[in-house]
């Protein structure tokens, strides 16, 4: 702030004075006061919004520690703290199984998407062939395609080959690329300097070698971001598991199990909130571990290029 103010040619009053004068420059009292008011307002707003965002979380955690009578009362503070709610959720629903099912789907689908999207993105970014533009436009337009258009026939066909209920409809298509991930990776590959690949090509490297030895290592952050996105998407997804695995409780994911648990215990909000907290914790831990990757990745999706 001060540094930019002191740059030559900015406010004419500064230029008129000597350099020694400029460093401990005194601003008019009115400006100082106005700036203080503005900073104070900004901080008040920042804190206000922080409360808005965090209070729901706080209430959820507090109510997850209340007795059932208390959660149905007008009180906010658990009295006493009923930590037993958490073990009793474990005893009422097979959380391990739901969790394991969710992990299986999320991990396999993510691996599939990453492995299959990289070569497609590479071909779209770095190989010259006829129809490249056309294919890219088709990939883009599938991004805009409402899933409802394809899901009805897929449901019918998957049920004809007895893939419903099972995880196969959620995992197998992942190994055949995902438009969003292809698009994101392609954008990133385009930004990698061409000379590196050229140098490798002079040394006789094939496209495959350039892709695996140069592009992939240089695009670690973008690949990490799409892996994270797809993992979270599948971890949180409700519609897919509901449609393809909803008929068999052994195949339920955490999202399905939680919704169903609510259906059976709809007055025991303390247990429902305890279950919700446990469902949120892994994602929140993951977020703190990978915050940088995550925010860079989100930014990439909205980039103007």
């Amino acid at each position, binding site marked *: 702030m001060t540094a930019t103010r002191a740059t030559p040619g900015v406010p004419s009053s500064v230029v008129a004075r000597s350099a020694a004068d400029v460093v401990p420059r005194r601003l008019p009292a009115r400006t100082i006061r106005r700036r203080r008011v503005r900073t104070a307002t900004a901080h008040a707003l920042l804190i206000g919004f922080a409360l808005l965002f965090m209070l*729901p979380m706080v209430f959820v955690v507090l109510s997850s520690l209340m007795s059932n009578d208390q959660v149905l009362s007008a009180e906010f503070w658990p009295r006493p703290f009923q930590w037993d709610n958490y073990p009793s959720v474990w005893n009422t629903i097979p959380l391990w199984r739901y969790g394991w099912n969710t992990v299986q789907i999320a991990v396999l689908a993510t691996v599939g998407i990453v492995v299959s999207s990289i070569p497609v993105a590479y071909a779209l970014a770095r190989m010259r062939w006829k129809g490249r533009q056309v294919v890219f436009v088709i990939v883009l337009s599938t991004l805009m395609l409402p899933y*409802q258009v394809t899901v009805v026939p897929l449901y019918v066909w998957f049920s004809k080959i007895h893939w419903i209920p099972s995880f196969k409809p959620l995992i197998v298509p992942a190994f055949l690329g995902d438009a969003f991930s292809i698009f994101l990776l392609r954008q990133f590959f385009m930004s990698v300097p061409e000379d590196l690949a050229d140098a490798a090509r002079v040394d006789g490297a094939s496209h495959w070698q350039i892709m695996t030895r140069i592009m992939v290592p240089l695009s670690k952050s973008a690949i990490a971001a799409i892996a994270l996105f797809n993992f979270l998407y599948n971890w949180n997804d409700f*519609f897919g598991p509901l449609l393809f695995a909803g008929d068999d409780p052994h195949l339920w994911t955490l999202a399905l199990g939680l919704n169903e648990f609510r259906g059976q215990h709809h007055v025991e909000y303390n247990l429902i909130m305890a279950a919700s907290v446990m469902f949120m914790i892994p994602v929140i831990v993951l977020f703190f571990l990978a915050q940088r990757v995550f925010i860079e990745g989100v930014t990439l999706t909205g980039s103007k290029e």
Partner: protein
Amino acid sequence: MYLSPWIIGFGIFTLAPMIASLYWSFTKYQLPGDPKWIGTLNYEFMFTKDPNFWLAVRNTIWIIVVGLPFRIVFGVITALLLTRKRRGVNVYRTAYFLPTMAPVVAATLAFAYLLNPSYGPVNVVLEKLGVENPPQWFFSPQWSKPALVMLGLWGVGDAMIIFLAGFLDVPKHLYEAADLEGASGIAKFRHVSLPMVSPVVFFEVVTGIIFGFQYFAQAYVASFNTTADQSIGGPQNSLLFYSVHLYQQGFIYFKMGYASAMAWVLLIISLLCTIAILRGSRRWVHYQGGAFPR
């Protein structure tokens, strides 16, 4: 060779189902049975006889027209607050973004509790403040959609982060030039920051509308338990959105032909919206160097 995963995937999981659903949309296809050609009867029924179709369209337009501007304004305000380097700004960024990470089902259940009419904290506070007859939220046809808008605002983080990146990208010299001209803070926002982030806002509007028509999980979970028969669609069908109606027709009643027709109407609506906004955007979206995004 490199394309083969995509070609197979596109063929099997996109192109073939698209063709099939287009064909089925002209048939009566009640599972377990076979499709029978009926011409345009599905479409005629949809537009003239199905009372829930127009209701679902109205509900969906409501959630887009009300929810999306709120999301964008809220996202811009919070992003703007986080743009300046201030003490603790990283903590605030994390705090604002964290709710976005909550899985949809968990977040919706949390709001179902927070907004419970009789013992949820929100109404308890409202009553203490002396509000008589506080809203019944998910149990009332008037307040169920506003409750979902609030849930959407809680998870505004993804839009916020994109706007934040846009604001941080604005070159410093533009603000310095504005300072020289003696521009006020509001003028700088209106004439420098806003035009510079307009492409990102535009991106949010397009995706917001497209995903608005696909709005499903929140509505499903929120309405699951408000009615005695555990039907979806919420109190007096106030949460019967387009996708919920389609889900009901296709995967509860197994009317595959009718569901396909609804899906194709949805596709055409999405296309028309996108084209209309693309056309209109030239007037208000500012691209540096005047280039259209590739």
